[in-house]
């Protein structure tokens, strides 16, 4: 009887409780004074970072600090005309590193002219980025030589903090697709270390061109085809395609192929061993109901070394090994043929405004791996982040050869 009475009371209380909740919510809305903020054409932030690292093998902890200023302006200054400017200055001081220096990265500086809604032309330094994959982008042909400095190995940071290439670009759009053509001339001979150099020698060492065609084939499928070439190389064909297997999953495939010399031959200036070589990056991003996005990606680099060739290079003369690693770091390509990339992002992790990001890069050829974790809390204008990186692997392996075994970095970013 008592149980029945309790049930009846509960049943009677439930609608009242829902109504009370609605009433409380509406009361909050009544008191809400906030109105819409006005859009700005610019975004500027300053970032301070402190880091501690430990080298491979025994050794003392090394410390460093960095102050960065990052600015981006994107404005319509006349009907149909748009100006874009993006620049970053990194001032780093590290223990045990010779030649501490400041590096300015002129990321973009270009003018856009939109003659009609479906016809646009751009001229200047443009970050022309392609690719649907997350960790490795074979169709991102303009990534070579684009990094002046690396502040974080997070793929998002590598994409953002890089040089564009000087080019003339035109785009035409139609209802179900678009065609983009660009030409990037030779404007420099070699990269520069000078602090404020626009470094056209890094990005415009040779003339290049690219065509990109997107065409919607169905409501669910819009592939993008690319054809990219330039002085001293055979044209490379590229493909980007994405699909939705279900409401929670995005599948993607990025492929590039064409005749090319192996990366070893290119780096060490060995005799041309040109052959048809493919590069591939394919994966899935699954989002849980709790808004955790998990990505697993397989990466194949047909220009990289297989197990036996990689082992032979590692055991061979150190200068050849060092040159190969340095050229590939500049090209942003993998030294080995097969890699696996795992990436997880959890927004509002347990508490609002706290984001967790984790990344693992695993080299299938030499079993070395890089692990990276970031905890980031953000207020309306301030971000506070702690990053940790651990590199494991035998000496000379893809990630075991990185100078630091363990790295901690704390960041404070303020948006103006």
């Amino acid at each position, binding site marked *: 009887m008592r149980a029945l009475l309790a049930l009846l009371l509960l049943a009677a209380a439930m609608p009242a409780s829902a109504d009370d*909740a*609605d*009433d*409380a*919510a*509406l009361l*909050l*809305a009544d008191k*809400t004074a*906030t*109105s*819409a*903020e*006005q*859009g*700005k054409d610019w*975004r500027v*932030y300053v970032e301070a970072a402190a880091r501690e690292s430990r080298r491979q093998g025994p050794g003392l902890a090394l410390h460093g600090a960095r102050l960065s200023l990052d600015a*981006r302006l*994107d404005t319509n200054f006349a009907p149909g005309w*748009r100006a874009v400017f993006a620049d970053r200055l990194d001032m780093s001081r590290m223990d045990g590193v010779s030649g501490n220096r400041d590096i300015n990265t002129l990321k973009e500086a270009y003018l*856009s002219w*939109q003659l009609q*809604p*479906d016809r*646009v032309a751009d001229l200047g330094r443009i970050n022309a*980025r392609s690719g*649907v994959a997350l960790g490795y982008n074979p169709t991102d042909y303009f990534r070579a030589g684009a990094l002046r400095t690396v502040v974080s190995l997070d793929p*998002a940071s590598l*994409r*953002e903090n890089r040089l564009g290439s000087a080019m003339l670009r035109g*785009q035409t*759009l*139609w*209802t*179900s*697709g*678009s065609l983009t053509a660009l030409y990037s001339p030779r404007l420099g001979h070699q990269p520069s270390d000078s602090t404020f150099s626009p470094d056209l020698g890094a990005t415009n060492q040779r003339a290049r061109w690219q065509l990109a065609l*997107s065409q*919607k084939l169905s*409501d*669910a499928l*819009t592939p*993008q085809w690319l054809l990219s070439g330039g002085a001293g190389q055979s044209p490379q064909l590229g493909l980007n395609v*994405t699909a*939705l297997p279900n*409401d*929670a999953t*995005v599948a993607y495939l990025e492929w590039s192929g064409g005749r090319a010399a192996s990366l070893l031959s290119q780096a060490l200036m060995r005799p041309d061993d040109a052959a048809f070589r493919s590069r591939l990056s394919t994966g899935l*991003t*699954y*989002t*849980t109901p709790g*808004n955790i*996005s998990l990505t697993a990606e397989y990466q194949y680099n047909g220009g990289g070394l297989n197990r036996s060739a990689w082992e032979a290079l590692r055991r061979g003369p150190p200068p050849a090994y060092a040159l190969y690693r340095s050229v590939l770091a500049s090209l942003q390509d993998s030294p080995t043929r097969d890699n696996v990339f795992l990436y997880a992002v959890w927004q509002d992790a347990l508490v*609002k405004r706290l984001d967790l990001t984790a990344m693992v890069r695993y080299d299938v050829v030499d079993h070395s791996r890089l692990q990276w974790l970031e905890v980031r809390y953000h207020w*309306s*204008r301030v971000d506070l982040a702690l990053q940790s990186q651990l590199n494991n692997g035998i000496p000379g392996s893809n990630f075991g050869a990185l100078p630091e075994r363990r790295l901690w970095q704390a960041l404070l970013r303020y*948006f*103006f």
Partner: protein
Amino acid sequence: MNLERLIAGLGLVLAASVAAAAPSAQAILAASDAIRNPDKPFALTVALVEYRNSKQVDSSTLSVYSKADANSGQFRSLIRFVAPARDANKLMLKSGNDLWFFDPSSKASIRLSPQQRLLGQAANGDVVTVNLAKDYQAQLAAEESVLDGDRQNRHCYKLALAAVSADVTYHHIEMWLDATNSRPVKARFYTESGQLLKTAYYRRYQLQLGMERPTETVIIDGLDPNWVTVMRFGDYAWREVPEVWLQRDYLPRFKPE
């Protein structure tokens, strides 16, 4: 008068006479859709404020350009994040289940799944710019008085909406519409298992783009009633949205006026 116009005119007269006799649930729903969503391409600004346990925990501002698809009737939107500063000028394209996110800093176009919410409460947009009559079959469940968003008793039609296709976000919806003018008053959104996902109150009716429209939606989370989002709409304007803009490759080009 040509034949097509004559047929169209006769059709309108017929539809009007049927409507006058007994407004069908589907017609009431369509009328309420027309109140929430302008019938031509438009732009507006959305200010979102989010509360947890009565404390403001987040706020953001979006600029939205929207246009209905001529075939499906569903809205396709280009969304620009205005605030907070860290997200300023990031863009999103929503065209049915085709969702793309673009960050101008990294030039990365990322495809999102419907379940993936990259930034805050923007997902609540689906409670606002959606033509329910296209995706749901409506039945008149009751005529009753309910408390509206201003805590006034309002005589309403209560409609029970059932999804007609599997690829919609909400399996079924209860919706209360003002019996005198079909204005949306309140809605409850459910999963297939009957779990309440959201409650929405439509309020602060103002004359915008030729019609009295709700300029505020209050959303209460179904699982956690202490999670409340207030969406306030302003800066309404008719804006041409060319078809060629509603694709991934235009995202880097999109810059609202």
